[in-house]
């Protein structure tokens, strides 16, 4: 079953499968998403903030938790579990997220 992801502030939408990461699904859908390590879970540049549907995300692995430490310090106004890495997170329901750098590839 596919889930729908809405991305702010660029108002993009794409669909993600149950075994797909957000980053992979965004790339498949022609969306440029910030990344340097291309999904290795190392560069942390693909992080996003959850705006709604937090309950639909897979829980972060200990490795993702560790990588997220520095990002969370920059977003202390956001609940801790609302900061995630697109290359690690799976979703199983419709969600809205905030990722400043995400853009349509043709834009």
């Amino acid at each position, binding site marked *: 079953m596919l889930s729908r992801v809405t991305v702010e502030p660029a108002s993009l939408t794409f669909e993600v499968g149950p075994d797909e990461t957000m980053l992979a699904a965004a790339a498949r859908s022609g969306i440029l998403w910030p990344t340097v390590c291309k999904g290795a879970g*190392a560069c942390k540049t693909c992080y996003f903030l959850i705006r709604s549907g937090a309950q639909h995300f897979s829980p972060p692995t200990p490795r993702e938790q560790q990588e997220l430490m520095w990002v969370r310090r920059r977003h202390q106004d956001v609940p801790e579990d609302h900061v995630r890495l697109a290359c690690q997170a799976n979703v199983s329901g419709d969600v809205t997220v905030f990722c400043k750098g*995400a853009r349509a590839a043709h834009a």
Partner: protein
Amino acid sequence: MIADKIDPADMRKPASFTSPETYLKTDTRPVPQHMFEESTWDLGNEVMPKEGYISGEYHQLEVKHLWKKVWQVACRENDIPEVGDRIAYDVVGQSVMVIRTAPDTVRAFHNTCQHRGTRLLEKCDNVKHISCPFHNWSWNLDGSVHNIPARWDFPGASDADLALREVRCERWNAFVFINFDKDAQPLENYLGPDILRHWRSWPRAHSRKTYHFGMIVPCNWKLALHGFNEIYHTVGVHPQGLPFTADCSAKYDFYGLHTRFILSLGVPSPFIGETTEPQDSLDAFLSQYSPPEAFPNGFPQVSTFPQARAVLADLLRGSLRQMTGVDLTQKSDAEMLDAIGYMFFPNVIHWGGYALPVIHRFRPNGNDHRSCLWEIMALAPYPEGAKMERDAPLVMLEANERFASRPEPELRFIGEVLDQDVHALRLIQQGLESDGFSGPRLGNYQERNVRHFERQVAKLVGEG
């Protein structure tokens, strides 16, 4: 060799990266001409030997042919502003006492008593005479004998025999350099005409050291130095900087033994250039380096990268003026904002310009080639004629202490970045010792300052 000189721009991959020169051309003020100059060439792609980081014998060669031959920064003049002020500089088992003997005279002596070899000065203090705590021998500030209790008991020694042993000492830009080699060339020749010319843009004589931290890091001193002489590691170590750090298009130049890099800030890394707008760069920069309360109505709005750089440079001019009273209105955006790192061979990296006049200094930890003393200091300019307080003293951090957890306000915005560097440096020596690693494979362009440095060291060490 001139024959090896090629167009350095060719080495930036891909060629579409925006070069620092492009940003310099859009500056709102005149930029010093030397920032456009290129002095770089292809040094090849050979895998480097790793012996210099793991071999005790190599360390001994460095002691003999490098540390005892080169000019090295012992202190700042404002570490010892008053007559009688003195400070110890220790390196590879040697200790030097640097002392102000007259208002405008600084001298250096081996930090050892000519009686039984006792160390004379532990760290720093102010004295009328230099004395030894063991048998109360004493000397005048110029190193000549002042008093020796029971002088009659040393009939075979003249006063000249018992005077302190002087070490070469010269000054430049309020740095006090020492050299153990009596026959060394003058400091100005050692630095070379290009370095002297470039630094006329950034006089540091009337600058105060506002902080000085030190830490023992478990890696060879050269590995720690390299960590601050290439920008490539931003992608792994400081990813939060990518939105405002043009990492892989930084410029690298060689000047004799010394090197320079120029890194444009306020513009994104080519790695994420496609997904970063000018406003994103500015927002990320200010989120990292300013307190949230500084912008109650949100960050300034920009629509181009030159505009983002100009706005950030103006903010820095304003905050520096507020902090120091110095008027930097005429200084270019690049001098206010960019990282302009000069490596004064062999062990100091000092940033030019005014963004963050930081000084890194590296030395072996005594004679342990597998650990080093890393120090970080920063200078703040003072208005002409204003009296400066004495420089901030060295504060040593514990081995596992985090910069970000320190109470000093100066570390509020850079503590995390420094902790990231330390984390990487803690891992490098361990991995490099592995039988599975034959030697560093340096990037042709982005790590050429490192390769250039290692060649200079190898040349000196090979002279034995």
